[in-house]
Structure formats: C-alpha cells, structure tokens
C-alpha cells in the first residue's frame, strides 16, 4: 500500500550552512509510527539523489511526533555562496512531503 506523506504529515525546512534541515511532523500518533518506521535516513538520501551530495542524519522527536533530517552538502555551498534560487532550502520540506511511502 502507498501513502502520501503530505496526507499524514507537515513540516518546515531551512539551512544550516551547506546542510539543509527538514523537520517532518506527523498529524497523529499513527502517522508518527508510520514515518518512524518507513521514513528512514536511507530512504530520504535516496529520494534527494542529485540534490543532497552528503550524508543524511535522522533525529527523533517523539514528543512533537516529529523527525528531523539533516541533509549535508545540499545547498550549493550554503546560504551566502549558493547560486540556487532556493539557497536556504526553504522548499525542501514541501519536496519531501511529495514522497509516497510504501507500507
């Protein structure tokens, strides 16, 4: 079965140097269980192929039903050097929410 991430979660993204951070928050406990199980660092790294050149770290915040991803080497050198239109990775949370989870 496939589930659209957008239907079970929301989030926000931003920059930390050349790394982007993407926080994904599930709307309920069931959703958090699903993202906890299926939205792995490996899955996110694979998804952002061509955008994220470095490693992906995943942190859990069960208190907020949230996962935080750090995508290293993602912003073309970081906010002030980057030539990207979205140099601060502001739209990357939306990009991730477009993902479908295979469950």
């Amino acid at each position, binding site marked *: 079965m496939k589930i659209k991430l957008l239907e079970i979660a929301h989030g926000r993204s931003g920059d930390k*140097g050349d790394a982007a951070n993407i926080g994904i928050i599930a709307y309920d406990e069931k959703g958090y269980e699903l993202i906890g199980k299926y939205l792995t660092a490996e899955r996110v790294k694979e998804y952002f192929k061509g955008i994220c050149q470095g490693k992906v770290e995943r942190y859990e*915040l069960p208190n907020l039903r949230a996962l935080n991803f750090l995508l290293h080497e993602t912003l073309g050198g970081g906010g*002030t050097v980057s030539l990207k*239109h979205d140099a601060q990775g502001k739209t990357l949370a939306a990009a991730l929410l477009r993902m479908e989870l295979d469950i």
Partner: protein
Amino acid sequence: MKEKIRIASGQGFWGDLIEAPFNQVTKGEVDYLVMDYLAEVTMSILQKQKNKNPKLGYAKDIPELMSRILPVCKEKGIKIITNGGGVNPMACAEAVFEVAKALEINGLKVGIVLGDNIKPRLEDLVHTGTHLNNMETGESIGRYLDKILSANVYFGAFPIVEALLKGADIVITGRTTDTGLTLAPMIYEFGWKKTDYDLLASGTVAGHILECGAQASGGNFLGDWESIENMADIGFPIAEAYQDGSVIITKHEKLGGRVSFETVAEQLVYEIGDPKAYITPDCIADFTSIKLEDLGDNRVRVYNVKGSPETEFYKVSCSFSAGFSASGSLTYSWPQALKKAEAADKILRQRLDNLGLKFDEIRTEFVGYNACHGPLAIKPDENEINEVMLRVAVRGQDYYSIERFGKEIAPLILTGPPAVTGFAGGRPKPSEVVAYWPALIPKDLVVPEVKIMEMN
C-alpha cells in the same frame, strides 16, 4: 516578583513586517518587545557600511521604528531588547537618543552590549594559538585573515540581563543569539541563576519559538495553510512566561494568524540539528524533552524543558570575501516555453565559452519547472506550460568574467529563441560573494562589556 511576563516578538529578521512591532505594543498588553535583526550575512553588510561611514553599521530601520513605538513603550513601561545594533550598537543607541529628544521623551536609559566584535584581534588570536578552525571543514582561519570582512562572537542572555539590572529601558546589542533576547527578561524578572539549566533551557526554547516572528503564529505554515485567518494582519507570537519556566505561546486576539500545536511544532523543528543538544552560550536545551499542550484559543503551553550546562566556548561567526556572483533571467512563453528556455541556456553557455570567461560555477534553473525541487520536479507537458523563466547564475574569482556575463543576457532577446520578455532590470551586476566561517572560541578570551547611556 511578577507572576508572569509577556514577551512579544517584533521582527524575525531585518526586512520583516514593519507594522509588527507597532502592533505588538499597541494591540494588547506586553511587557517586553524583542527584535532579531541579524542573519549571518547581515553582519558583513553592516561592517561594509560602517567602513564607509563610522556612524553606520546598525539596522537602519530602528530610528524610524522607535519614533513610532517609543511614546507607547514609555507610557506603558514596555522594555525593548534588540540585536539590531549590528556592528555599531553605540551609534544605534545615539540615533535612538536623537529620536527620543525629538519626541521630548526624557529620562531614557539605554543599555549597550559591546565586545562581540573580535575582528581587530584576529591576527593576535591566531598568533597566540587560537586558530578559529572552521567548524565544518576543520581548516584554520590563518590563510583567510586578509579576506575577513567581519568576525563576531555570539553572546547569550546574560549581558542583556546585566543591562536590565542597571535599569535599561532599551537594550541594544551587537551579535547576540536570537534566543538570548527572549531568555534575558525571564532571567531578570524571575531571578534565575546561571546554573538553573532547566529554566534557562525553557527560556531558550521560548526564544527559538519567537525568533522567526510569525513563523510560529501561522506564517509559512505547511500544514493547512489555507485555513489561517487574516494573514494580512497577522499577529506575531507572544511568550507569556512564568517563574517555573513554563511558557504559553499566544498572540494578540485582535490580530490574524494562529497559534496551535502544529504552528508551534513547525517552528520548533526549524533550523535545528541534533534536537537533544541545542547549544547556546547560556545552556544546552534538549528539544526532545519539550511538552506542548494546545489550550485552544491560540494558546499553546510549552513546559517540561530539560537543560544542561553550557559549553566552554562561544560560537564565532566570521564572514570573508570569496569572489563575485551575478544572476540574470528571461521569461519564455508558450508554445514550447521550456524548450526555448533550454535552447537559450545552451546558446548563452556557448557564448560564455567562446569568450573564454572563467567561472567556478554556472547554474541554470527554470523557474516554473525545477528551480525549487531540482531533479525531483516532474517535467511539465510542453503544450500545457504557459511560461518559464530562465535563470542563470554564475560565481567566480574573476570580476571581469562575472561582469561580462551580465552583458550576455539581454542580447538573447534579439539573437535567440522567440516569445521572450522580462528584461527590465538592466544588466545584472557582479556582487561580492560573502562566505561564512563558523568557529568556536574559548569563553575566557572574550568579555562582554555593558554600558548604560542615560539621557540628561
């Protein structure tokens, strides 16, 4: 001691909604107004302004803003805390005094936090063994010394607390952490100690929620954004802080936006790394300990925050000159909008190549197709897409190449694919690339200095 204080966020960055601080002090009751003006790149811009004119180097919006809010703040006893002093907090304070004088407001006390600027000391520091290694690459700053534009230490809440203890009505700082601006009044009002780590972490979390303005109260909300009411008149967040460290995040009732579990949670995960170790000069906050309770009516209780002792280092933010960049754009319309834009990009690159220009990077994006999501974007149907904006950006060390690139955009209109428009802004000009150098410095090497200026 007050049972609670209300701290209002007035600005999330320099360039934020100008009406926000005025609304915060006039549309309901607050005790403090805190305003964050400093992004990483801002300090280098301000340093350049100060180099040209020693009376500049602070957020220039402040005097005009003060002329609107000072009378209200004086009347209601609202204290103002801001890091908008940039690289010249003293000049900022003097400008505020001028405003107060013109408004015939007397007896104003302004606290100024100095000492964060270590640029003049960099050479000495490196020679005495403090190498300010880049936190990301590990490289010593030594090789870049002649390219450094600004170097500032991030101070925390305690210098601001000192200014408040000395009776300041307004506190103007240079590089202070965004979170310190909100934490300081809690420490001051409730008498928290430097070792009250859970309390300091609670105030730090409140500061993180407030530091980006309306991003905590319905702005840039990726949840059900369409249901946010009255964004035109959006209310910025307010932290209602209690002695026990619990905080209720809310907003003025009359203003728009929303404060809910979801809007606060989105801000909590914004620009964080390891949530168990949110490091500030004041403490280390554990974001996984935070409890949020949505009380309804735009009130969210934040409590149970755990903290641990601060590290022995201050973070230093240096900026250095790293070449030049420019970007230009043209818009292509249906039919075959994307195909034309792609062809124009090829022609442009061929011409840049023929000219033998040198770049470190050339980047092409098609706004309307892939500028936000790159290779994740789904290619649109050529017959359906109405228009695409070609955006090409270049970066390099050779000024001439960057400048010449700027002269190669407009010619594409008459010498490239058809149905093209959108070149009204003139030739793109090279701008200096300012790169950012994060480092750590032992705390005992930098001492914050707090001054009080009093109006006669």
